[in-house]
């Protein structure tokens, strides 16, 4: 039986392969890293590879003891990844191109090291997908209904508070000013950050499958809920303190505050789950 820890010269070949993949993927990965730097909603992208690395490190004992048993089926995964790369590239679909890198890495692990090690590395590899900004088509398809939902709930709440308001699509009209519920306020973007951080939290600090599933699933309602709060607070400010209050400093501050509130709710949920188990 071949164990991973006895494969001494494996590391040299991994470096060769990483360089080859780096050359091919350079024009695809560099713009993605730029997007992390430019877009606050994906700044968690910088953390994702390190968190994935830490998830591997957590299982180092299992890994070193695992048997190396190459599996031919890995080639299927590699070819699938290459097809994703080429079709994505021909159709300028960035998500497909970028995700293909993760698929090819996963395929290589399976093809070279086999199912046992593939199983151990599956969670960190899947986690890498969270560093990729989601595709336009899905973003658009999900953002608009979410935006309308957030607007609708916020309008109901504002009306219940006795504020005169008129809604058209994702636009809120007050007697004094008009507010638009922008993409950022739909919650979809904070869902991505919250999902990335929440998944890391769930995997590192919780070991039960139930806790992990509940925590990861809770990111969606938490993000939508906190974004409703944000729109409601903006509406109240707009009503009583005018447009400047709603659009200026507060709007910036609210973005941060909403994310902070979401993190607090998430950690509280984690603590509650630990107590109940």
């Amino acid at each position, binding site marked *: 039986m071949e164990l991973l820890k006895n494969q001494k010269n*494996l590391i040299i070949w991994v470096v060769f392969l990483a360089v080859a*993949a780096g050359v*091919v993927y350079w024009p695809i990965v560099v713009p993605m890293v730029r997007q992390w730097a430019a877009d606050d909603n994906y700044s968690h992208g910088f953390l994702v590879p390190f968190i994935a690395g830490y998830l591997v490190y957590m299982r180092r004992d299992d890994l070193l003891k695992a048997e190396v048993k190459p599996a031919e089926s890995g080639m299927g995964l590699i070819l699938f990844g290459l097809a994703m790369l080429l079709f994505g590239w021909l159709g300028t679909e960035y998500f497909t191109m970028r995700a293909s890198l993760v698929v090819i890495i996963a395929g290589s692990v399976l093809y070279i090291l086999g199912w046992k090690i593939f199983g151990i590395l599956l969670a960190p590899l899947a986690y890498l997908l969270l560093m990729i900004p989601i595709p336009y088509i899905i973003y658009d398809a999900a953002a608009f209904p979410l935006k309308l939902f957030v607007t609708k709930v916020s309008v109901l709440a504002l009306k219940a508070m006795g504020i005169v308001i008129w809604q058209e699509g994702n636009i809120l009209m007050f007697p004094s000013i008009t507010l638009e519920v922008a993409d950022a306020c739909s919650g979809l973007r904070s869902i991505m950050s919250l999902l990335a951080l929440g998944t890391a939290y769930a995997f590192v600090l919780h070991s039960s499958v139930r806790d992990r599933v509940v925590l990861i699933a809770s990111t969606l309602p938490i993000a939508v809920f906190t974004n409703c709060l944000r729109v409601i607070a903006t509406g109240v400010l707009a009503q009583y303190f005018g447009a400047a209050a709603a659009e200026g400093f507060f709007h910036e501050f609210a973005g941060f505050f909403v994310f902070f509130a979401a993190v607090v709710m998430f950690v509280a949920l984690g603590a509650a789950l630990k107590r109940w188990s």
Partner: protein
Amino acid sequence: MNIRFRFIFIMLLLAGAGTYMAFHRDLEVPPGRPFEEFPASHAGWRMIGQANLSKNIVKVLMPTDYLSRRYAREDGSTVDMYLSFFDGGPDSGRIHSPKHCLPGGGWTELSSRHVTLDLGREAVNLVQAVYAMGNNREVIYYWFSMRGKTMSDELSLKLAEITGSMFHRRRDQSFMRISVQGDGAQEEAERRIEGFLRDFYPVIRDFLPN
């Protein structure tokens, strides 16, 4: 098969994909004719207005050329047309579907169906939709076209981009939208749009690449 060989095999596959991507370039296809030559009057229609997109919108859409015009007939009935063209080169953008853009602007889709409209020599696949914002109603016809083929859904457009780039090195595409604003009289709006299309479709074709 030993492990070293597996590494080499994967690297060869990656090199193949990388080489293809490095040498494959899509062509920059010019429009059939420059859009500024688009007739201001034709078959009883007269242009009564022309709009420019804001700088920000141009930066997002990155069209090679576009026209946003309003035409009126003798009887005063008007039609809005928006035609944009993307040459498929590295600096050109691509079509943004109204299915996504309009709801973002506060419009709600009341109805939308895919139809094929017979325009004399050609049948055009298009979307016939009604959007509303407050009391405003807008009847909208739109389609995407690539290499002379008209399409009305986003998935076909994506597939046409992939196969066009793969087999013909062409990704040039155009988007056409004709609309009539009004408060309800839908059949009249549809008749007007279809009349406009019958008159103008050959002209539009003339301004797009084949």
